[in-house]
Structure formats: C-alpha cells, structure tokens
C-alpha cells in the first residue's frame, strides 16, 4: 500500500518564477492538505482540498493556489516566487470527517534564488 507520494523531491527556482508541486494521497484517502515548513519551524497550514474544492485556508497570499483532481491527487501552485518561499512543502492526506489522522509525504524542498 503506497503512502503519500510527492514530486519532485527537490526544486530550484529563481525569484518571480512559478512552480507546481504534486501530491498523490494514501490509498483510500479523499482529503489533501498542504503545509509549508521553514527551516527550524513547525509546518504551517496552507490549505486543504476535499471533493475538488478548497475547504479551508491558512494565512497565505493568493499567490498560493491549488487543485484537486477526481482521483484525489492534488497540486500546489506558487506564482511570483519570493526568496521567502524557500521551504519544505509537505502534503498530507486523510479521510474527511472527524479527527482522522493526517499522513504526510516526504516533502518537496523548494529553493528560490
């Protein structure tokens, strides 16, 4: 049973560029959440997708957007990259409803130069 998979593992971009990160949830899960983790900090919630809609959003600007596909996989898009966007981006999947456990992928390390 494959867990949560993310691609790519590493990415280097320059300021002003756009980036797309991808996530496939754990089998049987229908909900995908995205987190940003800066060095030395805990993960910060970006948003959550369920039934192809954004259900909840954290304190992130509109430059951060996402999408969920019918097969429950998800993409995170970041436009007009800033140096401060350099971080580990984590995807977590779960089943909607109740206090279900969120399982995390290995993350995508984004470096903005």
């Amino acid at each position, binding site marked *: 049973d494959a867990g*949560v998979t*993310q691609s790519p593992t590493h990415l280097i971009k320059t300021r002003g560029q756009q980036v797309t990160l991808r996530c496939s949830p754990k089998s049987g899960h229908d*909900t995908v*959440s995205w*987190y940003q983790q800066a060095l*030395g*900090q*805990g*993960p*910060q*919630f970006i948003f*959550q997708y369920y039934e192809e809609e954004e*259900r*909840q959003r*954290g304190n992130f600007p509109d430059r951060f957007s996402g999408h969920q596909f019918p097969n429950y996989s998800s993409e995170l898009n970041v436009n007009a990259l800033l140096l401060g966007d350099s971080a*580990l981006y*984590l995807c*977590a999947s*779960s089943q909607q*409803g*109740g*206090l*279900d*456990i*969120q*399982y*995390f*992928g*290995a*993350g995508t*390390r984004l470096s903005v130069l």
Partner: protein
Amino acid sequence: SQELEQSPQSLIVQEGKNLTINCTSSKTLYGLYWYKQKYGEGLIFLMMLQKGGEEKSHEKITAKLDEKKQQSSLHITASQPSHAGIYLCGAAEMITASKLTFGTGTRLQVTL
C-alpha cells in the same frame, strides 16, 4: 488562533536514559497529534490523543493528554539512537479536523 509551545527546544540524552517532551496549548485541544521528523524529511505519525486523561503507548514511547486537554507529554523510556529526530506536536482546532497547528518541535539527539 491556537498556539502550541514545546519544551525543551532541544535535548541531548545518553543512550538508555529516559526523557520527556512537553506540549502546551493556549486553547482546549480537540485532538493532539505527535509526529516524528528526520531532518528535512516528512512527518511520521506516532500517536493521537483525544480524551482528557488519555494515555497511549507504542513500544518505548508513551503519550499523555492532561485532564484539562491543554497539555500533552511524550515520554521515551530507555532511549536508543533510532529515537533521534525532531518531535512535533500538532493540534486540531475543531472536532472536524482539517487544519493542524504545530509547535516548533523538539530536536532530540541520543549519544552512545
């Protein structure tokens, strides 16, 4: 918004010693999650606590949630090098968990 404070920020223990990590919330916890993270990698789920006074154990790790549901502790007995990593507590703000708020983590090193 909910804030989680973890202590200590870092810990160095000798192999075989016991240790405790604490997580304190500014609000009532509906669900408290403990994760472990190797440097630069994803989070590995350890345990989830929901009820006041609840205690769960897995191998040599025990997690507790206090009666008032505002503080949790993670205790490791007879630490091993494999326990090294960053321990993060995460909290659900509502009964329908979506957004998790995390503490800044506790970095654990286990020396031989």
